[in-house]
């Protein structure tokens, strides 16, 4: 499919593909096994300038948008969904600053993020606040020109590795979701600690930890936008980042599919390659079609976001929902085509299945995405009533 990418986007994608094929693929199994954070790869991505694709040129980036970020994330994910998350998770942690930060905050944080000198992380989830994001308990109390943060964030991608954290905390308990605010906290802040590294089913090259705030003082200059805007910052951030999850899912699906087609061509049973059997051909055809449809939806959504469209929640949710379900199905079918070999960790496809699963869960479960989509559809229908 020709997605009419610009010349610059083709160059970016090809560079990301080169890094994925030459640098990430050979080490994907190693990092999955050891669960180490792939710093050598992050350094390569940093040197390639690709950390800055979605950051404006005035802050040291390449001036692209969500679409460019999706192209890169997809390519990295094709090789390893976990390593790709070090990149994509930095995007998630950066969006609050990019979307709502002051010029001063952007000057202070974006150039280092664009250069890949510092990774970022987004902190909203807590033990009691998953899908119910409104029930977060972490507090921020103003004290002179500082805020004092207390609480524990859970399952934070890039935690411990990142240097810049965007944190949602409650500044006014009486106002519900309108009492939340967003802050930038830098690694090393006194009173900020990290929990143990979580042991996960997939995306094991990605670092996931608790972020614990105990009387952690944050300069008031690090408040993003103003008090009470935290929930809006978070929701808009997720609207912008979900096409990135969709791209990650498309990449994982494409990676699994590539392995499946190659294996089907070379695996001989009953005296013929299994790709000559219609049962396998039809599976491959469905997988290929689904991946392309997911990619088309992800790109269309990313372009809509970049166009400056105001209402993007429904489309953003759709892209994440569809692509992650496709990733799960395609990775599952890829394991099936590999048969017993597919179940063995010596072969690459079972990892795609483990990596795909998270895309149905994080940045809003697919059930929450359906709530968002249906909610918008019903609202739109109501508006049409005379």
């Amino acid at each position, binding site marked *: 499919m020709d997605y009419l990418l610009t010349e610059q986007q083709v160059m970016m994608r090809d*560079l990301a593909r080169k890094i994925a094929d030459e640098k990430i693929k050979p080490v994907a199994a190693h990092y999955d096994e050891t669960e180490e954070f792939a710093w050598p790869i992050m350094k390569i991505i940093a*040197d*390639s300038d690709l950390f800055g694709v979605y950051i404006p040129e005035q802050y040291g980036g390449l001036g692209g948008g969500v679409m460019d970020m999706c192209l890169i994330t997809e390519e990295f994910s094709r090789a390893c969904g976990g390593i790709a998350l070090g990149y994509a998770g930095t995007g998630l942690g950066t969006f609050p600053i990019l979307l709502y930060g002051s010029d001063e905050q952007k000057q202070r944080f974006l150039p280092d993020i664009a250069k890949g000198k510092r990774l970022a992380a987004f902190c909203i989830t807590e033990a009691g606040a998953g899908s119910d994001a409104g029930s977060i308990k972490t507090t921020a109390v103003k004290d002179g020109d500082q805020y004092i943060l207390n609480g524990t964030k859970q399952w934070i991608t890039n935690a411990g590795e990142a240097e810049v954290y965007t944190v949602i905390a409650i500044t006014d308990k009486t106002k519900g979701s309108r009492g939340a605010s967003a802050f930038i906290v830098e690694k090393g802040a006194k009173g900020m600690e990290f929990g143990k590294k979580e042991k996960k089913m997939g995306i094991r090259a990605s670092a996931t930890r608790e972020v614990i705030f105990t009387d952690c003082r944050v300069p008031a200059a690090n408040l993003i936008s103003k008090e009470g805007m935290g929930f809006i910052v978070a929701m808009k951030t997720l609207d912008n980042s979900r096409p990135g999850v969709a791209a990650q899912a498309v990449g994982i699906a494409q990676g699994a599919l590539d392995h499946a087609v190659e294996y089907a061509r070379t695996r001989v049973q009953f005296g013929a390659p299994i790709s000559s059997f219609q049962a396998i051909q039809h599976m491959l055809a469905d997988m290929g079609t689904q991946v392309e449809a997911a990619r088309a939806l992800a790109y269309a959504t990313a372009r809509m976001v970049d166009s400056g469209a105001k209402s993007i929640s429904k489309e953003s949710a759709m892209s994440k929902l569809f692509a992650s379900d496709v990733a799960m199905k395609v990775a599952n079918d890829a394991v099936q085509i590999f048969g017993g070999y597919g179940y063995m960790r010596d072969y690459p496809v079972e990892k795609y299945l483990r990596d795909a699963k998270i895309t149905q869960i994080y940045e809003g479960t697919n059930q929450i995405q359906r709530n968002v989509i249906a909610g918008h559809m019903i609202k739109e229908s109501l508006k049409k009533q005379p």
Partner: protein
Amino acid sequence: MNIIVCIKQVPNTTDVRIDPATNTLIRDGVESVINPFDTYAIEEAARLKERCGGKVTAITMGPPQAESALKEAISLGCDEGILVSDRKFAGSDTWATSYTLAAAIRKITDFDVILCGKQASDGDTAQVGPGISAHLNIPQVTYVKRIVEISAGAAKVERMTEEGYDIVETPLPCLFTVVKEINTPRMPSFKGMMRAKSAKILKWTADDIEADPAALGLDGSPTRVVKIFTPEARKGGETLSGATDDVSKELVELLKDLVI
């Protein structure tokens, strides 16, 4: 520090095919890339520039399409590229090639270090680098695996040998050919690719480099290729089996027959 990197565009294959009629390389249908050994020279040049400042100039002799190799070199950290190209260079052997490149480099005048890959993956002669230094009458160190120290007028390098390495001190300017142990070449950067895209490649002809026409191309090449062929693959050896005493006697008889 002004650094010159000599590169060559080669077919992207380890299975080089030769046209039996002309005894030249068949380039049709094979993608062209920078000679893999030269990528280490480019990387070392970029690192020297990061270490000491200055400018890196990539230079190649080749047909017009070799411009893409120079652009790639720019995306990998070189500042500018010079394509030395003229029909008069056609058929150059290593002597004429190194003469031509030396003439072009003499035009650059201000340089401290010339870096080359140890050899090209198509011709495999490893003669052009040393040839350039001979034509320029400057020192050379081949098979460099590490540049230990480098300053305005001198350098200390490690030269790989079969047993280990030599430590060589040399005045500058000097030509180094490098081995793959010297570094791990970086990936191109996006900004480098954009710079390469808009970079103007200088194009120099035989007249531009003020070369002696008699020393160029086929006429200037003392090498005559009589025949070029792929040697036959070795057949497998013979295996003797049986009781140790019998086998050793049999082996001695066979060796006697071979008159070793």
